């Protein structure tokens, strides 16, 4: 939430015609600029962003720092590609533009897209860096496009000269299938110096990574920021509470099937908990997939992964329907629910559960067409179900104690 004025320096030189970043280097830059502007204005509505072009006919300020996103998006249209980038002049003009910002309380930041080879020498860049440092201006460098000998070195030297307290960053983006914007999303340039990321950045990251509907809790932070904030806060509280509950559960039921307690604790949960569980689910699922190779488990996991926001009630009905059909599936589903409602907290719990899981899954694997009337399977099911009832009561007491 830092109050900041940012100047973005775009490289619109001839080197940007290249298509190694899809669709072209220039387009990738334009997308990245749009995303950055969005993220900055989201994290603090009083932030301003300006844009200048470093190549073309010469260094030219396209937009002076403003909080109007429309202006910024519009200025990227019809920007011609050509000429050579002048990095030193670009940074100096950016510094001047920031100096004349309207709100003097804003911190000053320059973001440079360095796509073409750099013709200045290290000394010049270091001097520029020192000037920026003296005037308390932070600098973010995006090194992409042309890979020239010594380019990375020069940029690192520039960063070292500017950097105070890690407020300045550099990102090297090699060519590859990932879009420039996607790579930038996970960097400190977006997340703003490790503040934990604005909701925008987190949402965009979720969209890029998992193909889930773009927003963390199914709530658009733009439309309802208070709700998004409230959900986020309650998720963190729940996570902390769950970790504490899980630790206690782990200690008490160390010999029993720990799985029995987990689903019951989640059944106590409210909607927000289901959302938090859904979020931790996504992480746990990826871990578990590598360990378990049971096809049934994978199916169940995929099912619940597709509906991360669905309530537990839905899942329980799914389970009971499936249970009627196939006790194997029921067992697998129950195991997957136990799995997924595990906390991201204690690793020791995880390993113990996994040990149990692998034991059980090995049973399943070894008995592909297991007889439902098999007494051992029946006993297992029965014991798990009976355990879920007394721990439920225990869990109700536990939250009261903790509060």
């Amino acid at each position: 939430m830092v109050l900041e004025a940012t100047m973005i320096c775009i490289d619109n030189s001839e080197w940007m015609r290249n298509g190694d970043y899809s669709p072209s280097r220039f387009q990738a830059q334009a997308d990245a600029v749009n995303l950055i502007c969005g993220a900055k204005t989201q994290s603090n509505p009083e932030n301003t962003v300006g844009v200048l072009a470093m190549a073309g006919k010469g260094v030219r300020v396209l937009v002076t720092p403003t909080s109007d996103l429309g202006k910024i998006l519009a200025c990227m249209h019809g920007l011609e590609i050509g000429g050579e980038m002048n990095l030193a002049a670009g940074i100096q003009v950016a510094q001047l533009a920031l100096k004349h910002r309207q709100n003097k309380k804003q911190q000053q930041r320059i973001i440079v897209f360095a796509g073409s080879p750099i013709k200045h020498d290290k000394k010049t860049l270091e001097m520029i860096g020192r000037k920026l440092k003296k005037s308390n201006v932070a600098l973010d460098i995006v090194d992409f496009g042309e890979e020239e000998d010594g380019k990375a070195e020069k940029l690192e030297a520039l960063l070292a000269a500017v950097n105070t307290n890690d407020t300045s960053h550099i990102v090297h983006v090699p060519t590859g299938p990932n879009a420039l914007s996607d790579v930038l999303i996970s960097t400190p340039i977006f997340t703003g110096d490790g503040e934990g990321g604005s909701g925008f950045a987190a949402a965009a990251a979720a969209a890029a990574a998992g193909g889930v509907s773009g927003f963390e809790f199914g709530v658009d932070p733009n439309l309802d920021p208070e709700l998004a904030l409230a959900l986020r806060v309650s998720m963190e509280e729940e996570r902390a509470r769950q970790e504490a509950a899980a630790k206690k559960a782990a200690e008490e039921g160390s010999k029993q099937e720990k799985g029995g307690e987990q689903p019951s604790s989640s059944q106590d949960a409210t909607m927000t908990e289901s959302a938090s569980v859904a979020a931790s689910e996504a992480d746990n699922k990826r871990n578990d997939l590598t360990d378990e190779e049971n096809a049934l488990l994978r199916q169940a996991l995929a099912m619940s992964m597709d509906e991360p926001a669905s309530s537990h009630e839905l899942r329980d009905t799914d389970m009971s329907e499936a249970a009627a059909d196939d006790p194997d599936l029921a067992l697998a589903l129950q195991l997957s629910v136990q799995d997924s409602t595990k906390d991201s907290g204690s690793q020791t719990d995880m390993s113990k559960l996994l040990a149990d899981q692998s034991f059980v899954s090995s049973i399943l694997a070894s008995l592909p067409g297991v007889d439902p009337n098999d007494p051992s399977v029946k006993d297992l099911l029965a014991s798990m179900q009976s355990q879920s009832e007394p721990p439920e009561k225990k869990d109700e007491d536990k939250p009261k104690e903790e509060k």
Partner: protein
Amino acid sequence: MSTESASAIQKSQVDLVDFVDWSGVECLNQNSSHSLPNALKQGYREDDGLNLESDADEQLLIYIPFTQVVKLYSVVVKGPEEEGPKTVKLFSNKEHMGFSNVNEFPPSDTAILSPDNLKEKPVVLKYVKFQNVRSLTIFIEDNQSGSDITKVQKIALFGTTVETTDMKGLKKIEDH
């Protein structure tokens, strides 16, 4: 001469540290672990171990706004013999200066500090130039030995306040 200035300080001058508007105080090119409050704030500035140090080079630009209008009489700058400041330029009522435009305006006063000054001998200023000071900018251009880092142990400002209305004292007239 020195006794004169010393007594002048005692006469009616107060230490203006009480009238500094801390929310607007800024210092450019300071080392973040050795920052301005070390030299300016009561308590910190008495400790010679806590200094204000410069970062990228030897210059420092300090901006001090006041909570009310003051008249500035003298200034005490204390520093180590070698890295203490030498040329100090003072600008009155100039907001948000940067290193680039600091040489564009003539300073309200310039002081070349001698080693005596660095031992807390006050520097008397051109009083007429500092009659109506809302904010003070101190530009430390270089230091005694020409080293890369300038260290300042204490900055104290002496002067008087101008009679201004205390807004908090104003009370609303009750309607009858």
